[in-house]
């Protein structure tokens, strides 16, 4: 008996759409037994049918039913069984005319591809090693302290490293923090002293102040951390939380708003420091100011400075206004803003400030800041809510400046990773280290290292505490998954990792350079060295390797090449060539988008296309394009996530790399005498899924009308 079993479900309309008797014979073409047909395969009885065969020794299973995104947990039969799902429901039945020849061929081809896939793969053996449980927290401000406490509460050990002599960071130097409870009406005590005491009193937490990280080598669960406080010390850590905070945008760069040139102009950070140590006084004469003006967005949302909104400055100014009004109710405060942003319940605090007679608020654009009467400041504001340009004379001006990531433009560095792709987390938008803001906001591009707090995104104290808690969760989760050799986002739980035939390596370094996660290190001879626990299983290295020596046990160049070759190029009578278009579709966005079209059941897809799901578009090997064209496909569509500044690629650069590789194929195409228009790159956002049928239809039509059949078809058969 063969160890490969195939099953066809006839539920959900599949049985009514397809000639099941013909279809169940397809595995015979691949030297397999005829398929088992079941009316309701996802039912307990259906699952039991498969389980019975598994118990009897089946190690490879093809389930031809619904999309693999439906009930993945039901169709799981342990590591011993390598399983493929053939998408007869969303891929055929729900998007095709029932009982036509083209629909039959579509189902037949997909089932054939499934049979080929299981024959070419097996389940990977996970990488299992003795891993360390400690979480290293870099930075002892409110974020780092919170992370440390949260990790400790989960029963894990923490090593907290702070470069300053004292714990507490910026928050502990503040007079008060933003309101949290009591109707969000008044600034509150920072509570940092209690938090610091709690950390010092926690047995799970080891604190190193006045200490910096000198070097971090290794991978999740087995990081070697070297810290330095006079002398160096090395220890093991499992995962790392980077909580190095922010830098206030420097007043020196705000000369256009009077800083440096005009007396009594300070930044909000300087103002906060002043407030924490006593009453607010004018820098020139040490007297209490009678009028204080605030300019919001000082250097923020300004392409010449920080082009983003730092989210906290509006609240900071409102808080500062309340300091002044508490200090002396005769102090008048003027606030000039572009937009007042007080998200969520902070709105209540904003309202309480609006209710104060001594605080004057207007929207406006600052036109000039110059010296005013006495040692004061004169601010001209246009486009105000008062309906005209106004001039405000104040004795003191506070510039509400934003925050930069502590990591941005930081030459000293904080993590000093011993990684092929550099010592720090890659700074993305505006220098903030981030991985995929929309889909997995806590991830970074370095597996097992999580950034939290304003180092990764501008945020206030409360948001930092939440962020710190999230990072603590991710740090622990990564340890737990790593212990079982499993991947974190986006292929959570995948136990595979790249296998390299080193003897054929030419040391071209493409894999070590293109891996978005810096999984590879290089040895002295520039050979790639694998760190399996850093790997996110995207397969970009596989697509990058010109020698085609990188593969996964369950995903390889040969596997996909064989699958795409299993497709019919003629009608059943073998009298007529059929147009065939291959879609290499990214499993993250393209595949769900195609499933959504099917689940709408409103649109038919052109039956000439064959969809082949691949991990990330970045895993696409040029070999597949060559093979597809020489196998007789008339066109190929690469369907992946949008890339660029607002990329949606789950592996950041995958779709961009695929597009680049496709472009490089131009010469090959002209050698083969094929039109370059036979290849199409289509970025797809999940919310644009409704556009896909039209794009596909148009492409197939253009192939048919303008270019005709691929001349290689006849050689292929």
């Amino acid at each position, binding site marked *: 008996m063969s160890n490969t079993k195939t099953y066809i479900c006839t539920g959900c309309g599949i049985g009514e759409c397809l000639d099941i008797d013909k279809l169940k014979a397809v595995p015979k073409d691949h030297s397999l037994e005829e398929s088992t047909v079941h009316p309701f395969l996802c039912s307990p009885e259906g699952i039991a049918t498969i389980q019975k065969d598994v118990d009897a020794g089946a190690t490879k299973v093809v389930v031809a039913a619904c999309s693999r995104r439906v009930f993945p947990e039901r169709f799981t039969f342990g590591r011993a069984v390598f399983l493929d799902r053939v998408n007869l429901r969303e891929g055929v039945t729900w998007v095709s005319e029932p009982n036509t020849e083209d629909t039959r061929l579509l189902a037949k081809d997909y089932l054939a591809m499934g049979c080929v896939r299981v024959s070419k793969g097996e389940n990977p053996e996970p990488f299992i090693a003795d891993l360390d449980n400690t979480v290293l927290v870099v930075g002892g401000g409110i974020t780092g302290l919170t992370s440390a406490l949260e990790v400790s509460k989960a029963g894990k050990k923490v090593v907290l490293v702070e470069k300053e002599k004292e714990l507490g960071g910026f928050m502990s130097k503040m007079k008060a923090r933003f309101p949290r409870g009591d109707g969000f009406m008044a600034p509150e005590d920072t509570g940092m002293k209690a938090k610091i005491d709690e950390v010092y009193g926690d047995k799970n937490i080891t604190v190193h102040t006045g200490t910096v990280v000198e070097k971090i080598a290794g991978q999740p669960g087995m990081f070697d951390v070297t810290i330095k406080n006079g002398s160096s010390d090395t220890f093991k850590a499992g995962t790392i939380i980077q909580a190095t905070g922010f830098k206030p945008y420097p007043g020196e760069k705000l000369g256009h708003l009077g800083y440096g040139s005009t007396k009594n102009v300070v930044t909000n950070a300087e103002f906060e420091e002043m407030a924490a140590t006593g009453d607010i006084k004018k820098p020139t004469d040490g007297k209490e100011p009678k009028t204080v003006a605030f300019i919001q*967005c000082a250097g923020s949302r*300004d392409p010449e400075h920080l082009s983003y909104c730092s989210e906290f400055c509006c609240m900071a100014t409102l808080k500062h206004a309340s300091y002044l009004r508490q200090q002396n109710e005769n102090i008048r405060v003027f606030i000039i803003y572009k937009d007042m942003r007080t998200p969520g319940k902070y709105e209540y605090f904003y309202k309480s400030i*609006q209710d104060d007679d001594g605080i004057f608020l207007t929207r406006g654009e*600052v036109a000039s800041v110059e010296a005013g009467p006495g040692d004061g400041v004169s601010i001209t504001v246009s486009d105000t809510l008062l309906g005209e340009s106004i001039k405000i004379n104040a004795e003191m001006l506070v510039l509400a400046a934003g925050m930069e990531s502590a990591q941005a433009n930081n030459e000293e560095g904080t993590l000093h990773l011993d990684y092929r792709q550099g010592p720090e987390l890659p700074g993305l938008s505006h220098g903030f280290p981030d991985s995929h803001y929309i889909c997995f906001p806590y991830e970074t591009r370095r597996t097992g290292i999580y950034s939290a707090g304003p180092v990764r995104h501008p945020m206030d104290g409360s948001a930092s505490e939440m962020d710190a808690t999230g990072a603590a969760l991710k740090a622990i989760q990564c340890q737990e998954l790593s212990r079982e050799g499993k991947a974190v986002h986006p292929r959570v739980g995948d136990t595979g990792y790249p296998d390299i035939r080193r003897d054929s390596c030419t040391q071209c370094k493409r894999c070590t350079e293109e891996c978005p996660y810096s999984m590879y290190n290089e040895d002295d001879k520039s050979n790639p060295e694998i760190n399996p626990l850093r790997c996110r299983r995207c397969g970009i290295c596989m697509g990058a390797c010109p020698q085609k020596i990188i593969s996964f046990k369950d995903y390889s160049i040969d596997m996909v090449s064989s699958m795409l070759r299993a497709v019919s190029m003629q009608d059943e009578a073998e009298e007529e060539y059929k147009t065939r278009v291959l879609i290499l579709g990214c499993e993250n966005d393209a595949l769900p988008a195609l499933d959504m079209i099917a689940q709408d059941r409103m649109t038919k897809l052109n039956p000439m296309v064959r969809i082949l799901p691949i991990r990330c578009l970045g895993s696409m090997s040029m070999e597949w394009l060559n093979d597809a064209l020489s196998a007789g496909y008339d066109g190929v569509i690469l369907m992946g996530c949008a890339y*660029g500044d*607002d990329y949606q690629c789950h592996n950041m650069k995958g779709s961009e790399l695929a*597009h680049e590789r496709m472009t490089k194929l131009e010469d090959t195409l002209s050698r083969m005498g094929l039109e370059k228009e036979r290849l199409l790159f289509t*970025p797809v956002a999940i919310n644009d899924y409704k556009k896909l049928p039209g*794009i596909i239809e148009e492409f197939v039509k253009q192939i048919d009308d303008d270019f005709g059949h691929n001349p290689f078809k006849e050689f292929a058969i």
Partner: protein
Amino acid sequence: MMTSGTTLSKNSQSKSCFEEKKIEMSTVEIIEPDFEFMAELKRMGSENFNKCYQCANCTAVCDVTPEQHPFPRKEMIWAQWGQKDKLIYNPSVWLCHLCGDCTAHCPRDARPSDLMAAVRNVSYKELAFPAILGKLMSKPAMSPLFYGIGAALLAGIMAVWNIVNPARHPGLSVLWNPPSGDVIYSKFFSIHQGANSVANMAPGVKVIDSLFLPVMGFAISMAVITTIKMWKGMKAHHPYKGAVKVIPALIGTIIDILTHKNFHKCKTNKSLGFGHMFTLWGFLLLFVATNLVLVFMYGKIWFGLEVGGPTPWELPHIVKLTGYGGAMLTLLGLTSMILRRMTSADKLGKAGWTDWNFIIAIYGVIITGILCPVLRIGGMAGIAYPMYFIHLVFVFYLLAYLPYSKFAHLFYRTTAMVFAKSIELGSKGAVEETAPPAAPVEEKEEEVAA
């Protein structure tokens, strides 16, 4: 090779806060909030203006506001920034009818109509010349004094006429020693002789006129001075500097006032418009009645015309018809407005002293004015004559202090409406005048076509 589908455009970045703007620096005003004014507004009934966050729902729902320079959104921030002159010399405050539509739709409970009312209250207090009178009138404690002044002047003038001609003018003793016979109020000022006629009434009316004509002269002069001041102030503070068309605006305004065209646009307090309209018409009828008396009397004295017939007039005499009709209409209108205000203070705002002071005076005039003929016909001489005296004291209070009480809205609102309308007409005219003539363009096109 092709790229299709969606491409994400880069977010357009916000403009620099320091972008070059053409601002005439010399014309930019230094903003200095008037804190005392802000406190005054709160005392005068607008406690919530600080809450406004400038969403402009108020302006959007207001059916009375003009398209250009609409209110009350801008008034709210002027109040928040203590911009006294901008508010005081602002026609919008008077174009508003305090119907409360804005307050009903305010998401922040900032109560814009309260602010409009408060600014008006401050205007009554501070705008009229001389300002000291307005200030004193705004104090409830001063009210007895002002009534006392009226009573004293009335008593004084009676005493003076008594000295001049004791035979005809009995003086104050009438109040405690009423003359015998039918109650005839001309006996109040002169001993009745001969047949009842307009001519016999004349000496008594002269006594009243000798007080009331100078008082009216004073009130109207002060009102005119204040109106000119207000007009100049509005011109100085209004952004529109073009031509104005006063005469057509005045005609339009009078029509608007008589029909209450704008007042009827208010939704939240619809009945208020009718209440106010009845009150206004009632006052107009009373005004007509008063003037008819003058016409009849002086017509007889100066021209020997016998138009009024013998006094005391009884219904359906035209003076009585208009007088009683006016009193009834005013009573009806005013009472409906007061009831509306008392039952929906949340929508209309609480009535303050400025309101009550005015209401008490009108009620005083109307109630005593109705009681006078009732007591007269009832022959209750002992109460009738003092009631007539009290009636005259209320009338004095209403007329003499007109520019300093809420009654002043009569000319403040009229002035503001004329101002706004003349600007509206003026700016429309300007647009028409600057529009290029169309004909030459067409000719050119024809030439090209040819």
